[in-house]
């Protein structure tokens, strides 16, 4: 895959519709991509898409990224045809007002909507300064009344941000999109699967595209329980704040300096030997990588590392600004180099080194 093809793959994945609990379209898109690469994949009982590359008597390694994205679920259709909603995953109400959304219809198609609320002209002075609570917002799809809306959408239907995928900045070094968290991880896995095609790697490899990360990591939990891996590599994107108004020690990681390797976050302490091996490989192969320098967030490793009799975990995340918004920003170079790092780790895996650290 050329760099251009990798960007195109990321674009396609990010623009796919897959709020938490409604990931099947993303899974099916990935399934098609994998099939084109000559891989057979299967959906497990909760919707995780899995590719198994077997190797007997070898360490079992589960590599995962989640297919879901933060989004919305319709909780009420009002008399005048507006859609009240709840959020799926952690979304800051401040990024919602006035945003465009894509709403799933009863027939499985999509309609456009906008998140509306009282116009500034009608707001009181206090309201203008306050965060509008989500319960005061509604999605307007243009319906004239309740029956009109009900003929198109239904309670429990999902929605996501409708936001352009844009390459921007100096020499187009950055990418802005919705759902970079974690379609970027999915894209890295597809890239690595292409790269290792036909190679014989002494690992029992399980590539898992997991569901429901954003609300409790449940897809990864059941996947890990059935796969029972020895090692877990989670490919993610992580919230960073490398911004001028944030003190250096709270910036988490820096865009453009490579994938961020976690030591610990709010749900996992990562395996020290695994982290050391990853850092050493990055250094020796000249692949940019950095440490995540703040204890924040969490990912599928939270459940995976605690499954069965315990799993040694590693997480590599693309530093991402404004995560969980319609405008997540990542560095193109970080995206491109992370795939190389994952490939390098898989092809240079050294169990002794990890265990003896």
């Amino acid at each position, binding site marked *: 895959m050329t760099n251009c093809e990798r960007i195109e793959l990321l674009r396609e994945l990010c623009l796919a519709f897959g709020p938490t609990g409604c990931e099947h379209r993303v899974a099916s898109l990935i399934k098609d991509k994998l099939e084109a690469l000559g891989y057979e994949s299967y959906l497990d009982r909760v919707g995780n898409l899995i590719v198994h590359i077997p190797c007997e008597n070898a360490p079992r390694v589960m590599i995962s990224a989640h297919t879901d994205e933060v989004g919305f679920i319709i909780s009420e259709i009002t008399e005048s045809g507006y859609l009240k909603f709840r959020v799926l995953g952690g979304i800051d109400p401040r990024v919602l*007002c*006035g945003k465009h959304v894509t709403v799933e219809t009863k027939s499985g198609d999509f309609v456009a909507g906008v998140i509306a609320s009282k116009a500034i002209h009608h707001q009181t002075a206090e309201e203008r*300064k*306050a965060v509008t609570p989500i319960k005061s917002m509604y999605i307007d799809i243009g319906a004239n009344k309740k029956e009109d809306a009900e003929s198109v959408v239904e309670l429990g239907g999902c929605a996501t941000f409708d936001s352009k995928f844009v390459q921007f900045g100096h020499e187009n070094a950055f990418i802005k999109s919705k759902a970079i968290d974690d379609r970027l991880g999915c894209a890295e896995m597809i890239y690595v699967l292409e790269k290792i095609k036909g190679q014989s790697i002494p690992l029992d490899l399980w590539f898992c595209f997991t569901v429901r990360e954003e609300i409790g990591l449940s897809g990864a939990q059941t996947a890990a329980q059935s796969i029972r891996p020895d090692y877990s590599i989670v490919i993610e994107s992580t919230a960073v704040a490398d911004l001028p108004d944030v003190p250096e020690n709270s910036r988490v990681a820096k865009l453009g300096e490579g994938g961020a390797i976690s030591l610990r976050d709010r749900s996992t302490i990562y395996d020290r030997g695994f982290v050391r091996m990853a850092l050493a490989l990055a250094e020796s192969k000249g692949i940019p990588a950095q440490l995540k320098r703040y204890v924040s967030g969490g990912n599928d490793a939270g459940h995976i590392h605690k499954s069965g009799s315990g799993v040694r975990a590693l997480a590599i995340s693309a530093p991402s600004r*404004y995560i969980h918004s319609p405008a997540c920003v990542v560095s193109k170079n970080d995206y491109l180099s992370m795939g190389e790092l994952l490939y390098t780790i898989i092809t240079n895996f050294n169990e002794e080194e990890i265990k003896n650290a």
Partner: protein
Amino acid sequence: MELKELIVSMASLMTVTGYESHDSERLDELIGGFFDESTTDALGNRIFIKRCGRENAPKILVDAHLDEIGMIVTDIKENGFLTVTNVGGVDTRILQASDVVIYGKEKIFGVIGSTPPHLQKPSEAKSLRAIGELLIDTGYPKEELEKIVRIGTPVGFEVKYVDLANGKIAGKGFDDKACAACAAEGIRRAAREDLAGDVYLMLSSREETTAVAGAATGAYAIDPDYAFVFDVNLGTTPDVPKSESVEVGGGVSLTVCPITDRRLTRMTAELAEKRGLKYQISVSGSGTGTNTPSIHLTGAGIPCVDAGLPLKSMHTCAESLDMADAECAAELIAAFITSKEIAEVFKR
């Protein structure tokens, strides 16, 4: 070009208040052909004239403002982040995670930053950041950015339009360029021989700032006999009283208030009824939030009808309108400028 396409094309123009001339050439391409002549005055009003061909004909002013809300760069920070302040009444709640365009030496893309929930302190969660505290992410190193952008560079919202159900559309800049488009289209539809006078379409500047300077000076120069002032009007949503808003899809609103001319308003309503065009009455106890207060006070005074295109989510990137209302508006304007009865009563 269909009316919807004209509305979207005009709304897409960069016309942040004070920078109305930025896309002037494109504006001329879009509507210049509907008129006999056009001028730009000292404050940036664009005036398009369609002549009736008769001597001493009354002058009919149709006003819609050209400017839209936006932002302006106040500082360039490390790693190419920009700070901005608002131009006009930007709704601060819509800013975080919005896509913007920075109109420097070249057009560049930017994103207004937000702090992700993972990294927020609980104390931050309830307050809205003031516009001056937000950062626009450009993805440029500071030195490179300084070659393109400087303090004072205007910033607008990224163009994005979508079709909603039932002929409604949503996007940015409908306030007030949707009205400008309807007005231009209405004037195009009126046959020259039917015109009740010379028609001046004033796409006025600087409405969104408190000065409302464009309409005042533009109307002074034109000195019309009477005027049709056309701006968006606040659409009814579940959280605002019906008495303070107008129904989207309910037709053009006509404002009855102390400063609008009662007779002109009534005659315009009759015209709508005669043509089978939907309209609704909007009431104010004082003035209007449009150019009418400026225009009616111009010179020796100008009788005004204040018409409104119902618009939801005003001053956001998701303003929405009903194309049926827009269609009504274009037809009503065509009827207004060809009404011999109105000209008879209001010509000087």
